[in-house]
């Protein structure tokens, strides 16, 4: 059933991507100041939004695990976080490409980039932590507790770095056709995120099954 869902979503994503790319590349005009390069924004901005969504989901499942003790929440949490980190990287990379072309530099320590980098470190730490604990119940509990600390940090990091310095383009108003392209691409990325999460979830559940079987074998040895 889940397989069918993944294939269906895959098809939808493929169609949407084709449609979006067509709109982005052909229909929308070049931007006044940035020329053609600005189009990367249609992937850059929704990537951040998708990553943010995934991180909220991750924090939610961590709370759910700590309250109920059901291991499935931990499985979902790690799958979602891994996908979130992927989208964080996409956001960082697209941003760096844009910056190289428009500003002439690969990186600058401004508010959003720095915050994003801190998030990558925090949740990368979560993934390393999760991978480094052998016993499943302990793994779930410790990772969930750390996830809450990391999630509490995200808004604090965001606001404090904003006071530190800002070079990032400020939020601007977009003409409606650009907004529409942005939102369509966001929808596509959300669906893509869902597919990745389902794939990762399947892998994680298989891992749990193997782990359980291994313990069973050892117990009867």
């Amino acid at each position, binding site marked *: 059933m889940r397989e069918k869902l993944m294939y269906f979503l895959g098809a939808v994503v493929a169609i949407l991507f084709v449609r979006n790319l067509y709109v982005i590349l052909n229909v929308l005009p070049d931007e006044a100041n940035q020329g053609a390069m600005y189009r990367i924004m249609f992937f850059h901005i929704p990537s951040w939004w998708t990553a943010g969504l995934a991180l909220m989901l991750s924090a939610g499942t961590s709370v759910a695990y*700590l309250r109920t003790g059901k291991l499935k929440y931990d499985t979902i949490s790690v799958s979602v976080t891994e996908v979130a980190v992927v989208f964080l990287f996409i956001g960082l990379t697209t941003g760096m490409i844009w910056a190289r072309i428009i500003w002439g530099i690969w990186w600058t320590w401004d508010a959003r980039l720095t915050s994003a980098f*801190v998030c990558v*470190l*925090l949740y990368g*730490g979560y993934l*390393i*932590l999760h991978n*480094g*604990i*052998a016993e499943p*119940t*302990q793994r779930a*509990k*410790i990772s969930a*507790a*750390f996830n*809450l*600390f*990391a999630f*509490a*940090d995200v808004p*604090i*990091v965001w*606001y*404090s*770095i904003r*006071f*530190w310095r800002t070079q990032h383009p400020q939020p601007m108003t977009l003409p409606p056709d650009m907004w529409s392209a942005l939102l369509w691409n966001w929808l596509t990325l959300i669906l893509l995120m869902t597919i990745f999460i389902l794939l990762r979830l399947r892998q994680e559940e298989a891992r749990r099954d193997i782990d359980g079987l291994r313990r069973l074998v050892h117990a009867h040895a």
Partner: protein
Amino acid sequence: MSFWSQTATILMKDLRAELRSKEAINASFSFALVILLLFSFAFDPSEETTREISGGLLWIVFVFAGALILNRSFARELPNDCLDALIAAPLPGSALFLGKALANLALLMAVEAVCFPVFGIFYNVNWTRQFWPLLLVVALGTWGFTVIGTMFSALTVNIRLREVMLPLLVYPTMIPCLMSAMKLSAHLVGGEPLDSDVMVWMKFLIGFDVIYTCLSLMLVEMVLVG
């Protein structure tokens, strides 16, 4: 037995054990001095530069040297299964955590108390002009660091990769606290009083301390009981 007397018992126990062996605190002092030395090669310590980077420099010294102390925090309970005895005792997890955090605060501030005069001498900086505000900022910043470090020490106590994981988890989480402390320290070491320019950082620092202290007190019992 009240919460606070149990907290005090744990605090005294940790301090007594550390001061008797002095393992972590000696390593911490030495490491702090080494970093201060190394920085003198990395930057040209002219007066102008030093004043600008003083906040950053000092806090980098504090967090790297301090990590040696925080690492030991719950790890010291592992030999002989002492942690089990503490969990079995009628001691709330929050009292255990608070006692250890306060002990760590004392040890860290002792290291910092040595670092400041040494820094003043090596880099020719008069850091005492805003002494009391500076002490407040150092105490608040160190508390933020201590709370995170002690909590994550509890979180990672039973993990194989504990020593590697602790810095990896602590440093990114601490970034807002560190930034605020650095900004405020640089300002105060330069002799400027606390004015409205920098008060926003004070608010961040206090906010960070409050949020993470509450979060730690809430979660520590659940983290320790398997």
